[in-house]
């Protein structure tokens, strides 16, 4: 912060990420509205609280260990040399994980004044941007499992995915020095795989153990449509998720950095891999892939509101891996095709494997994210994956990456965790409670209070002589 340009750049970057965090908060508002709208009246409060408590639990655990994992794990499980990387600015007991003026470090054995000058301004907002990605990853699973999962079980899975496995995948494949970038040329600029595929894979794993809601399937195995109680709430929720998605996209960029490799200075925005892109490019592509998704979702679902809105989301997710580089017309076509495939896959998997995904999360996020990564491997074949490392984007590199995201870090850990919870009979609520509704406790207590108040009112009316 010792010259004007550096100071302005750092403070602009700090403000930039802060704004993205505020926008991304709307994703969670949208998820809450969407899930409550999709649940039946008897499960509203449980559904709301299940998703709400993701916020504190993932926040504190992401502070405790998630942020450190991102910087410490890029070398992967022994795939490239180096092991764990030292990241003292991300250690929860370090002074830079707190309010800091950026001047002389208290712990001068660990930090230099340059460390504190930079990280004091950036650490909190950068941490928060990643944290909001973490909430999103956990919330995606939340929607799929509504109306029968135990909250305590879900929150453990939420912490596992939101503060542990997704951030490992980010260290591996969403970091300029991640081993997947260096070895596979993995490219996933706006997180088709690193957020959506991993969360979708985890949701599928939990659903396998959890089983369908009572009544979802007839005796002959054909599915019933458990109608959302409030389609308006769902659609407004999805609108809010779209709005928050702007913040998500912008938070995946570094806003201003010198990208010139020698020979002067060229300031530009970059993606998370520190390769150049522009906010204009991603604005074009976000909107065109959203438009394609809405159109594709409308066509394939014959104008069903739920799937049209979900198609818009799926369209963006399907194009996200390459939306830093695609042409808007390419983003639109990919955005239209991916949700059509995912819609078909959703119903095929539902019929074939009796998977009850209440909000289509596995399809929209899991299959959509997986396909998005695979498509980017073909579309961007031969592009440099990094400015720093000699790595090239290929179909096989991105296909391997999609497998790692969906299965290795998404499906497998969640399958193990849900299996353990199920073995202890802690994954699903008791049958009677599910039948009557998960809000029984809430309503039982409320009814007691309501009856008590009515009695008090009647007594007051009699005492005043207005009622005999």
């Amino acid at each position, binding site marked *: 912060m010792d010259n004007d340009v550096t100071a302005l750049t750092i403070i602009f970057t700090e403000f930039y990420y802060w704004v993205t965090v505020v926008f991304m908060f709307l994703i969670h508002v949208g998820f809450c509205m969407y899930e409550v709208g999709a649940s039946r009246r008897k499960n509203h409060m449980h559904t709301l609280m299940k998703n709400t408590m993701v916020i504190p639990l993932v926040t504190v655990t992401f502070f405790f260990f998630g942020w450190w994992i991102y910087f410490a794990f890029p070398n992967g499980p022994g795939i490239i040399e180096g092991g764990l990387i030292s990241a003292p600015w991300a250690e929860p007991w370090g002074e830079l994980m707190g309010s800091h003026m950026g001047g002389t470090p208290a712990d001068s054995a660990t930090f230099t004044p340059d460390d504190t000058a930079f990280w004091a301004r950036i650490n909190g907002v950068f941490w928060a941007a990643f944290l909001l990605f973490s909430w999103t990853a956990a919330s995606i699973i939340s929607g799929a499992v509504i109306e029968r999962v135990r909250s305590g079980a879900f929150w453990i899975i939420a912490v596992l995915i939101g503060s542990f496995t997704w951030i490992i995948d980010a260290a591996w494949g969403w970091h300029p020095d991640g081993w997947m970038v260096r070895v596979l040329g993995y490219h996933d600029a706006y997180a088709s795989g690193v957020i959506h595929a991993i969360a979708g894979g985890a949701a599928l794993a939990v659903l396998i153990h959890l089983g369908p809601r009572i009544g979802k399937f007839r005796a002959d195995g054909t599915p019933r449509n458990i109608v959302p109680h409030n389609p308006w709430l769902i659609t407004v929720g999805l609108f809010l998720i779209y709005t928050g998605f702007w913040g998500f996209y912008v938070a995946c960029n570094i806003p201003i950095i010198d990208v010139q490799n020698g020979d002067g200075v060229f300031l530009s925005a970059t993606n998370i891999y520190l390769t150049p892109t522009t906010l204009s490019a991603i604005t074009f592509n976000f909107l065109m892939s959203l438009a394609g998704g809405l159109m594709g979702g409308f066509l394939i679902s014959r104008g069903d509101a739920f799937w049209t809105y979900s198609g818009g989301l799926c369209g963006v997710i399907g194009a996200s891996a390459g939306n830093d580089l695609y042409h808007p017309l390419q983003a639109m076509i990919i955005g239209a095709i991916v949700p059509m495939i995912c819609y078909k896959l959703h119903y095929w998997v539902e019929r074939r494997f009796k998977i009850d995904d209440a909000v289509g999360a596995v399809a929209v996020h899991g299959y959509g994210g997986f396909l998005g990564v695979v498509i980017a491997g073909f579309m961007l074949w031969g592009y440099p994956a990094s400015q720093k490392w000699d790595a090239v984007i290929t179909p096989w590199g991105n296909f391997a990456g999609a497998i790692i995201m969906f299965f290795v870090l998404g499906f497998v850990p969640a399958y193990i965790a849900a299996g353990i919870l199920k073995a202890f009979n802690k994954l699903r609520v008791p049958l009677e409670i599910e*039948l009557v509704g998960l809000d029984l406790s809430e309503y039982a207590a409320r009814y007691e209070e309501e009856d008590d108040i009515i009695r008090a009112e009647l007594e007051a009316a009699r005492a005043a002589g207005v009622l005999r």
Partner: protein
Amino acid sequence: MSTGSFENWQGNMLDIGPLYPFVGSEGLMFIVCVAFWIFWHVAQWRMEDSNFSDDMKVLKQGDNLQRALKGEKILRSM
């Protein structure tokens, strides 16, 4: 006397590092907060089990389950 590592804003800003009080206690605060997080999960499990147990007791009495399924009010005190 200050719980922080500076006592006024008059000096050179480059000399000011951490803004929070009790610098040096971060490790202890970390242990306390992690313990609270783990305790929270344990307490939540117990509360959830207890709620389910209370609800099941009510539902198993008489025809309460059938009445609840028909949408009638079911009270804990029933």
